[in-house]
């Protein structure tokens, strides 16, 4: 039977090549994604191994608040350091500080942008030895030395290159303290590389670092290097014994802190891997339809051959396995090609991400054996499983079929399938809605599973819909294009099952594109509505590119506030605290005059007099929790951690309305967080000051903060939209895969259909159909199939969009705004894909030799 399988494969090279190509694309993307993330992880693993190379014990505060951006931790007192140095067996111990610092080049531009790429941080210089990972190097002919005074700084070589900095010149550094000029006294490399993972680093003296962080007697952590003959575990025991307070301090071995750092990166990377892999699996899911369809059609076309096999003694099982064998071979070959393609994809992705402003640090690509195996297994399995149904149908071909003129087309659709389709669709919708609105644990898993079932349900329902919908879609065509349109329409519905399977592949791509388009547009509209409702400020100062990376020294808000043209200006910060046992976002600003900047809609209590130990909560939270003004609530912060805060005010503008459900004053913030950076600054002009005058007044101040950008309301909206667009474009790019595979599916189905209709096409040509007319018939058939898939996809996309917006109402996505024009563009693109997919089959059809075609049996 193997010979037969192999011969069958060779005989149908082209149709299987297209199938294999679809599998290959999916596998390539899956492998490429994993190779890329492995590569990035390896880079960071090496980096942390280097950083902690000399560290045998690591001391830090035990308290932490977990947030989406990683844990936030309190500092530890600096006087622990002499105590630790006195411990027997300690060879060296150093305290370090790690904080936000942004280098500015000679032209006043920021070097590196934490909003979009690698972090920009500051640290303290520790004496060269086991615990200092930096190496001073000669730079542009000048010798480097460590910073010795409060006015000196050392920077990494990569930043020096980017900013064209020279040793001896003055550089400005932005921190949470006021911007300050430092003399560049040295350039450092990090082990073998110019900078750790592409980050930008500024290194100061320890006392200057403590001044910048307003932590004169504190360190973030203390690292210990052992003398000879002391194990890491033993040192941890000795340090723990010496400093006491096990509830307050945590002592880790060097191996543990390295592992923790690496795991944190792995966790952050896993979101990235999963995110990208989802698109690979979407592409493969689409490919399943294509494979299933191809094998179904091929089996239908080979009915006589299969019946002959049965007639001469092959068992049903053997026939079944011969078809499955083809699938396994196609799958294996395609997956192998996909693995190779994956390495290429990884390289391309890396370049693409750099193009989108997300530069990924890395040396060569890491191709792990398990990723290769994953690609081979997933690709082969998907191909084989997709062929199971067609193979079983092949096995059921009765031997007698060899004698009969078996109808190739199997029109009609059983009621049972329709019912199954309706049930599956309804079940999918229910699961998806439960996942979104029922707020269960692992809601996202419910959503994914529900979407999957919904897609399958609609695909099962497809053949029932294909006939009426295809006729309807083709109706104008038949009217406008005459007989070619009429033929296209009838061809598109002559085998509803084939049409609907082909359309289903496109449906999935369009549904996801449609969903993302609708979701993005709803988000933009919600932001716009919220800005209109909440903003009273005339200007916003944000970090370049937005995002949560970095911020400004509070000095910026003060300087702007001091301008005579300005009525009120205040910084706004967002962060996370723990309240009533769960981690929540809150906003922080100056409560005095806040109603000049925002419509907070005060409801109870007094917003303006919020004290250091008071907070304000939104009406929604107050209602949900039954809290009222004067209640004491349990809260946790990184600094001064446990305690209570009293509800000082209740206001209407919660998260849903565009602000936040919790609010504390800047004074309260400063006493509870180490880093005092404003994420945004809002300013309102004094009455009578024109926007132009105001802008002219603020701009010089903003200029001194190179990472700051001044925006009015309209510009702010645009900037937010631009950010969403960037994200959406990336998603479109990923979904293009699924659409391309769907296009291949259309091409494959048409090619196979044309092969079946050879005689009919010959007849059409004989009675006078021109080649152009024949091509147009094939093209319009593709268009009808595509329109069918696009229509279903858009309906599903609209539903997804509506459901997700509904689910995120409380997060501030309040407006459901499907964008008409963009959805028309989606339809247009689907039509273009169909037209392109039809090119090759149409050309083949039109080039049929008329004489041979009419003599085909």
């Amino acid at each position: 039977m193997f010979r037969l399988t192999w011969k069958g494969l060779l005989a149908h090279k082209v149709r299987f090549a297209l199938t294999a190509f679809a599998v290959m694309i999916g596998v390539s993307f899956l492998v490429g994604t994993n190779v890329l993330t492995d590569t990035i992880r390896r880079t960071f693993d090496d980096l942390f191994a280097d950083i902690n190379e000399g560290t045998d014990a690591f001391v830090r505060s035990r308290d932490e608040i977990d947030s989406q951006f990683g844990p936030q931790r309190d500092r530890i007192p600096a006087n622990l350091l002499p105590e630790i140095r006195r411990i027997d067996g300690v060879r060296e111990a150093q305290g370090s500080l790690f904080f936000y610092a942004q280098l500015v080049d000679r032209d006043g531009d920021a070097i590196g942008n934490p909003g979009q790429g690698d972090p920009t941080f500051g640290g303290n210089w520790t004496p060269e030895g086991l615990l200092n990972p930096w190496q001073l190097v000669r730079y542009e002919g000048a010798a480097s030395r460590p910073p010795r005074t409060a006015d000196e700084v050392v920077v990494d070589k990569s930043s020096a290159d980017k900013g064209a900095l020279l040793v001896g010149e003055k550089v400005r550094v932005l921190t949470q303290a006021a911007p300050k000029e430092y003399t560049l006294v040295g350039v450092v490399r990090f082990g073998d590389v110019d900078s750790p993972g592409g980050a930008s680093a500024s290194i100061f003296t320890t006392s200057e670092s403590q001044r910048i962080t307003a932590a004169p007697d504190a360190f973030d952590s203390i690292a210990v290097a052992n003398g000879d003959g002391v194990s890491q575990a033993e040192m941890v025991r000795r340090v723990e014994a010496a400093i006491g307070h096990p509830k307050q301090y945590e002592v880790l071995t060097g191996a543990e802190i390295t592992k923790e750092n690496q795991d944190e990166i792995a966790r952050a990377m896993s979101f990235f891997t999963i995110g990208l892999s989802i698109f690979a699996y979407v592409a493969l899911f689409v490919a399943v339809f294509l494979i299933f369809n191809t094998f179904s059609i091929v089996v239908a076309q080979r009915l006589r051959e299969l019946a002959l096999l049965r007639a001469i003694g092959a068992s049903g099982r053997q026939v079944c396995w011969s078809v499955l064998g083809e699938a396994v071979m196609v799958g294996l070959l395609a997956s192998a090609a996909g693995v190779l393609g994956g390495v290429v994809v990884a390289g391309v992705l890396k370049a693409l991400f750099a193009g989108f402003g997300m530069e990924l640090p890395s040396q060569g690509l890491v191709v792990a054996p398990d990723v290769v195996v994953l690609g081979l297994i997933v690709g082969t399995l998907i191909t084989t499983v997709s062929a199971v149904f067609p193979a079983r149908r092949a096995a059921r071909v009765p031997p007698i079929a060899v004698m009969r003129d078996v109808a190739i087309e199997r029109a009609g659709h059983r009621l049972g399938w329709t019912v199954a389709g309706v049930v599956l669709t309804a079940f999918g919708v229910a699961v998806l809605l439960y996942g979104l609105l029922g707020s269960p644990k692992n809601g996202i898993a419910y959503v994914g599973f529900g979407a999957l079932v919904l897609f399958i349900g609609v695909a099962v329902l497809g053949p029932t819909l294909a006939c009426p919908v295809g006729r309807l879609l083709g109706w104008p065509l038949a009217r406008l294009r005459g007989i070619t349109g009429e033929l296209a329409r009838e061809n598109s519905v002559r085998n509803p099952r084939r049409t609907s399977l082909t359309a289903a592949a496109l449906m999935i791509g369009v549904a996801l594109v449609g969903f993302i388009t609708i979701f993005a547009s709803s988000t933009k509209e919600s932001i716009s509505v919220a800005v209109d409702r909440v903003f009273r400020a005339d200007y916003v100062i944000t970090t370049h590119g937005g995002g949560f990376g970095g911020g400004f020294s509070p000095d910026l808000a003060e300087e702007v506030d001091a301008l005579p043209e300005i009525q009120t200006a205040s910084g706004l910060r967002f962060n996370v605290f723990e309240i009533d046992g769960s981690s929540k976002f809150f906003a922080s600003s100056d409560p005095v005059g806040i109603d000049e900047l925002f419509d907070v809609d005060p409801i109870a209590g007094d917003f303006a007099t919020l004290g250091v130990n008071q907070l304000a909560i939104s009406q929604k939270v107050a209602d949900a929790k039954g809290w009222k003004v004067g209640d004491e609530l349990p809260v946790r912060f990184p600094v001064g951690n446990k305690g209570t805060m009293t509800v000082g005010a209740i206001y209407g503008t919660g998260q849903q309305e565009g602000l936040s459900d919790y609010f504390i004053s800047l004074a309260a913030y400063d006493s509870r967080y180490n880093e005092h950076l404003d994420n945004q600054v809002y300013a309102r002009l004094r009455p009578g000051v024109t926007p132009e005058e105001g802008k002219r007044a603020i701009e010089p101040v903003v200029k001194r903060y190179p990472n700051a950008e001044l925006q009015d309301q309209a510009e702010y909206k645009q900037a937010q939209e631009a950010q969403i667009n960037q994200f959406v474009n990336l998603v479109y790019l990923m979904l293009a895969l699924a659409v391309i595979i769907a296009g291949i599916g259309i091409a494959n189905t048409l090619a196979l259909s044309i092969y079946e209709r050879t005689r009919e096409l010959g007849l059409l040509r004989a009675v006078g159909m021109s080649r152009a007319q024949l091509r147009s018939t094939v093209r319009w058939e593709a268009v009808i199939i595509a329109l069918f898939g696009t229509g279903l996809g858009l309906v599903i996309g609209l539903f997804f969009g509506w459901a997700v917006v509904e689910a995120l109402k409380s997060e501030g996505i309040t407006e459901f705004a499907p964008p008409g024009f963009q959805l028309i563009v989606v339809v247009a693109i689907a039509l273009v894909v169909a037209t392109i997919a039809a090119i090759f089959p149409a050309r083949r059809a039109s080039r049929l030799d008329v004489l041979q075609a009419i003599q085909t049996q």
Partner: protein
Amino acid sequence: MTNAAPATTATIAARAVMASKIYGQGDNEVRALDGISVEFAQSRFTAIMGPSGSGKSTLLHCLAGLDRVTSGQVFLGDVEISACTEKQLTLIRRDRIGFVFQAYNLIPTLNAEENITLPMALAGHKPDRAWFDNVVDAVHLRDRLSHRPSELSGGQQQRVAVARALVSRPDLIFADEPTGNLDSRSGAEILTFMRQAVTDLQQTIVMVTHDPGAASYADRVVFLADGKIVDEMQDPTAERVLDRMKSFGD
């Protein structure tokens, strides 16, 4: 005997001049047509007969612009179709020639009426309604017009094919074994229609057949063997044709 056709009195609908069709090269060379010259008069029903491999189908295909001669000329009326481009041939087939094949004559997705008017629809012409009704009634298809081919019997399908060939009033109808797949009663029906079309409607028909009974409906029979015209017969009867065929040893 070869020049017995009354060519002098009738207009010529189609003719071949020294037409040859050669497949393959060297030792594999096959001469399907070997320098044939033949004329087909207007408003006449001509049958082409001959043993398998005699070149009768090739002659038909070349006359109909479905295939090209290797050398020589083929004319439809005054037009030399052996010199036409593929595009021109398509238009000639659509506008000036009607076809009836042995089987699979119809487009399965179109109903009987749409199949009948297909060549005109392809040309973007409206069918002449009165003529259409005439033809449809002649082949007794009035109550079958909205049926798909799969809902018609073999005989009905061939009648639809004949109607399609007639409805555009082509210069010439080519029929390739039109009754080959039918039982004798349905076959006789089709041949009667074709005969009537020539007698009553002045249609010109050229038919390839190997059935002497079918040939007896024609005005004239042309006999082919080994790519050459070897004989012809006016006003044939089934017996005379059968006798002539026996002499080929086929």
